[in-house]
């Protein structure tokens, strides 16, 4: 492939590569900077925050963080919320997406329009009534309160609907002639086929859930029910004052570790997902 490229085309490739590297570096620098600062003693950071080499080097900021008794508790909360939300979103999105893609039922268009309208309502707009409702039910400061408002995700339904629509109809017809019921078709044919789409949707949901801040901040007022993001934010104020910048940076790195890990493991699906939502 490269052998055939000569002259201007070759220079074009090199230019493109150079631009890509520069853009990547611009994206990466702040991250490296944060990591570097998290590995420097706070005293050092008082003098200067510059430099990309963690010297003098210390992991004190991290050990301090982990020694805080509530941090593991927050991690568990975040995991429960993120995993719970992911499973529920996948269930609802795939079922509803399939229904919209392939079933005929009364008021289908109206219901679909309502769902799409949901895309346009900013989350913050329903915070007050939602908060009030959950308060009335007395379910604030539970995992359920953190998960429930995020289970019906229009974009997830939409994504799965698009995916199911792209599955050749003959596949379902063949299954129907093979005596498969609707449920068999859904669970034995459509779901297994949609594993890539489900993985992508699941990853995005998980990441979204993990990074979620505003709702947990409002709903979980009990420190034991904090998620990692809310919890770390609550101590960052103290840190910045008493311990210094290094600790703040360490908590930022710490909170994003699971996400980075996910990215590394599921890179392929995330790229596919971005391409998919770009309408490719």
């Amino acid at each position, binding site marked *: 492939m490269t052998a055939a490229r000569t002259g201007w085309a070759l220079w074009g490739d090199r230019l493109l590569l150079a631009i890509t590297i520069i853009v990547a570096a611009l994206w990466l620098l702040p991250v490296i900077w944060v990591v570097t600062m998290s590995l420097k003693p706070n005293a050092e950071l008082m003098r200067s925050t510059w430099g990309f080499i963690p010297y003098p080097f210390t992991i004190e900021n991290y050990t301090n963080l982990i020694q805080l008794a509530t941090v593991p508790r927050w991690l568990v909360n975040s995991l429960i919320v993120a995993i719970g939300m992911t499973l529920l979103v996948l269930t609802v999105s795939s079922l509803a997406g399939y229904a919209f893609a392939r079933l005929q039922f009364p008021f289908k268009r109206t219901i679909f329009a309502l769902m799409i309208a949901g895309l346009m309502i900013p989350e913050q707009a329903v915070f007050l009534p939602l908060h009030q409702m959950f308060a009335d039910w007395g379910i604030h400061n539970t995992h359920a309160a953190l998960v429930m408002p995020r289970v019906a995700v229009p974009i997830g339904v939409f994504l799965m609907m698009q995916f199911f629509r792209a599955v*050749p109809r*003959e*596949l379902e*017809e*063949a*299954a*129907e*002639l*093979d*005596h*498969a*019921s609707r449920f*068999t078709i859904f669970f*034995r*044919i459509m779901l*297994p*086929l949609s594993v890539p789409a489900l993985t992508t949707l699941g990853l995005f949901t998980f990441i979204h859930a993990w990074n979620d801040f505003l709702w947990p901040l409002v709903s979980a007022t009990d420190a034991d029910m904090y998620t990692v993001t809310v919890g770390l934010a609550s101590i960052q104020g103290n840190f910045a004052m008493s311990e210094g910048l290094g600790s703040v940076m360490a908590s930022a790195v710490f909170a994003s570790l699971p996400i980075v890990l996910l990215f590394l493991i599921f890179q392929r699906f995330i790229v596919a997902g971005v391409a998919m939502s770009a309408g490719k």
Partner: protein
Amino acid sequence: MAEVALRGVSKSYGNVDVIHDVSLDVGQGEFVVFVGPSGCGKSTLMRMIAGLEEVTRGDVLIGGERVNDTAARDRGVAMVFQNYALYPHMSVRDNMAFGLRNIGTPRPEIDSRIAKAAEILQLDRYLDRKPRAMSGGQRQRVAIGRAIVREPKVFLFDEPLSNLDANLRVQMRTEIARLHHRLDATMIYVTHDQTEAMTMADRIVVLRAGVIEQVGAPLDLYERPANMFVAGFLGAPKINFIKGRVAASQGNEILVELAGGTRLSALVRPGTANPGDAVTLGLRPEMLQIALDGPLPGRVEVVEQLGAVQLVYATLADGTTMVAELRDRRPPAVGADVRFALGPGIRHVFDARELSITLPEGDHQ
């Protein structure tokens, strides 16, 4: 008793009529081919038999029972789709087993049926493969295998070979024909390819724009087409149509005058053609010869040397293109002026409405 019967079946999508009042009986063990140009409603008709498409008017009967309101899964038919429609995430074995598992067939029974189908279709070695790791021909075999193991009352094939290359198509054609003999099952087969129809069918159903044009054994349709459409659709190279006018008629015999003054005689059913009527002559390429004293002058445009035969394409005086299938190793040169003579064979005559008025063959002489 008819295994499959259509009684005045029509289909509309909204106010677009796709199938008009089709009636047909398909006998037990018969191999019937629906043929017609793309978009004429072959698939729709087949899908109505399968139960994948609702019938707008009329009745579909399978095994003597009206099945209009019977779900596809309960009709006892198996279908092979053009794009195979194999379950991509399942192995070949699971693809075949799926339908049997769904009706709770015991495991040993499933295994033995798969083994038998795999042997018939030479799939033994591929049972644990996924469809994507197989060639088009192999996938098509799996799709057929999936139908066989179900032991259906009726097999439906919707253009099963059109995604295969020419060689494979010929090979699969004979395999399906062999399968039909071996299983002695009722098969309905859809194709737009007249060769497939001619070679495989017990009976051909020619469709045009949702209407049955003619039904009959392949040779019947070839020799006694009811109209110009059927005559033109069956046979390759295509039959030659030459416009003319009845110059004289006497009894069954008419003289047709073509552009350029050539007069050819033909036999028609009594009372169907009067002097002055516009008619179209239909001459099959294989009945044309080249002779010095032939009545039809033409100029050679293209010569296709196929070895056993030569196809000579020529233009007649009125600009009509005509093709002759010769068995002369040394055909005329391109650009040569030649004269065509008519050898033995049926001279088809069609009236102004494109219907055949040819005297049936038995009545010749």
